[in-house]
């Protein structure tokens, strides 16, 4: 039997029936370092306090019930080894001291009791927001709807979601804007946007692009990507939704998402490096130099950015007024800009998209001697003796 170790779990507790608010309580547990934080919590519940509330079922990262924060990181309690959690809690601890493993309920959700959060009021409500079912053309087929298998490959990543809520807990946009539809629901939305059988693709994209708390409310922070125990990478799905909305469907959203993307891409094609002043202007009011009149929402954004621009000029951050006039930003030297243009032409023509979740990383060809080593060995003797 493996040796057990002593660990301390510092658990954030909350009992709705008691008047005082949440509080911290430490539990000493003793178990094999390769067992999970969930095993530790269940031991504390079993030996010290039966009232400690934690939700769990399969204990094997399949059911998605035991989402918590461990040392600040949103994850599944059953998927985190307690020995590793102890190490991560003590990476900056001075010699001779030990810090406990901190376990908290998931973030961005109300707490019902201890580590049990209310998944209904946030997670499931947001999931329902994206119409999470297939919208077909209404005429049921005689048997099943046949689609080429390769057309479904793209959405297998989102299908891997187990609805644990770890990404919602970690979401830094939702922390600042609780109305953000959020990573789990938007990943679910892509599951149907990418489904060739669904007939409401454009309507779905229009809805998610126009919502001020939709696809353009994601701050691209990767917190959901790191939190997801199943490799769904919700943020990548949100970026796919943006690409489908802005480029394939050419949806002009009122959040300036498409304008911003278009302006950025165009500036690099023309200048090779980013001219931020031009980006601001083009994002809010594309082509304003010529004839187009910016939309009211864009004018609001432009006006909102003026105090910042004025302060920039005063301190010399924006070096001079000409900085605000397009055309002053230097181009790349020599023929470099021409090379960038060629890249644009080639990439716009091909537009290859690689999803490593599906294709995986190429196996590195083994060195000749390694190949030899991987052959079934006749004798268990060390390689040197061969």
């Amino acid at each position: 039997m493996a040796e057990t170790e002593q660990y301390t779990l510092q658990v954030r507790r909350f009992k709705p029936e008691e008047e005082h608010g949440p509080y911290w309580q430490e539990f000493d547990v003793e178990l094999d370092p390769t067992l999970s934080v969930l095993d530790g919590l269940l031991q504390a519940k079993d030996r010290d306090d039966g009232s400690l509330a934690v939700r769990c079922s399969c204990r094997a990262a399949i059911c998605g019930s035991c989402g918590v924060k461990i040392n600040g990181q949103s994850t599944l309690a059953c998927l985190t080894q307690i020995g590793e959690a102890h190490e991560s809690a003590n990476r900056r601890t001075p010699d001779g001291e030990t810090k406990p493993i901190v376990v908290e309920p998931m973030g961005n959700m109300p707490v019902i009791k201890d580590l049990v959060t209310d998944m209904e009021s946030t997670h499931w409500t947001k999931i329902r927001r994206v119409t999470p079912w297939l919208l077909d053309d209404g005429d049921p087929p005689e048997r099943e709807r046949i689609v080429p298998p390769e057309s479904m490959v793209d959405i297998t990543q989102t299908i891997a979601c187990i609805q644990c809520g770890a990404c919602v807990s970690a979401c830094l946009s939702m922390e600042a804007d609780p109305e953000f539809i959020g990573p789990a629901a938007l990943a679910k939305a892509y599951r149907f946007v990418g489904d060739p059988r669904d007939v409401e693709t454009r309507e779905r994209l229009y809805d998610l692009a126009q919502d001020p708390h939709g696809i353009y409310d994601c701050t691209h922070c990767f917190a959901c990507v790191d939190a997801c125990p199943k490799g769904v990478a919700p943020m990548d799905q949100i970026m796919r939704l943006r690409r489908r909305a802005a480029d394939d469907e050419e949806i002009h959203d009122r959040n300036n998402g498409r304008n911003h993307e278009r302006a950025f891409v165009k500036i690099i094609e023309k200048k090779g490096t980013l001219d931020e002043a031009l980006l601001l202007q083009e994002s809010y009011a594309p082509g304003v130099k010529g004839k187009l009149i910016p939309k009211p929402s864009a004018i609001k954004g432009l006006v909102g950015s003026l105090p910042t621009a004025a302060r920039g000029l005063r301190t010399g951050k924006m070096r001079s007024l000409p900085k605000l006039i397009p055309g002053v930003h230097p181009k790349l030297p020599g023929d470099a800009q021409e090379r960038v243009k060629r890249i644009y032409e080639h990439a716009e023509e091909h537009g290859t998209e690689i999803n490593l979740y599906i294709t995986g990383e190429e196996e590195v060809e083994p060195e000749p001697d390694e190949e030899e080593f991987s052959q079934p060995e006749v004798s268990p003797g060390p390689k040197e003796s061969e």
Partner: protein
Amino acid sequence: MKLAYWPGCVSRGFTTELHGSMALVAERLGIELITLDRANCCGAGVIAEHNQELADTLNARTFALAQQTGLGMMNICSTCQGAQSECQQRLDADSAYRAHINEVLAGEGIEYVKDADGFENKNFLWVLVEDYGLDELKAKVTRPLAGLRVGPFYGCYIVRPKYRLGYEEHPNRDLYLETVIEALGGEVVDYDGSRKCCGFPVITMNRETSLRQAGTHIGDALDQGADCLVTPCPLCHLNLDMQQPEAAKVVDRDLGLAVLHLPQLVGLALGYEPKQLGMNRHIASTEWVGERLAGVPA
């Protein structure tokens, strides 16, 4: 030490003080930087959002230009690090895709080679800790930042996602700012927002969400007694410093916290004066940092 140097776009636009202070610091540390002046924007994730192959090819071009020098590559922007690492991962994963992209680069007579000898793309923060060495850095310090309470602010792209940013080989990359602050003689301030998002990517799309993020983190750092923040990301700097007065309105409290670029903090400890490091160009006043260090001779 000699490196191919990609300064990025913002360090030559809105935050020229970053580019300038990096040059000064490199000189005093004895790091020779060969600027990749023909290289292009990393795309900051936005070009990849539009067309993945376009972003991958643009960054393959930058890597190929760096590989021509035969040197390792250094950047000074968390966002460049993240966007470039993402493209590099796809390029490295698939030889047919790499060959397809190298066809375009062939017109310029360059090629991106996977695992080329000595080629790695690292942020200045990683170079400092992993290659230059903290002991070497300490030996160069002439004005320890004694008593200066510094809050680290990493920027998302240099800490997440872990599987793409070399954390298997270097598991403490998300603690390097703390170790550098300590090596320079400063005091680390732990606060809630150090590894959270500054909000910059949505400043033109959801201004309120964006500024609330920046304002909340600055407020948390102030509550923990920070004298300043330090960041290896100029885009974070734009939201934390340039937009700070606007962020203050959104979170409805007085802010006023100096936000330093990483080379500026290093530069102070190497004996440069705040003005030499362009700290007078910031929006949030950096005078307090100067006053704190005034008693310590350079």
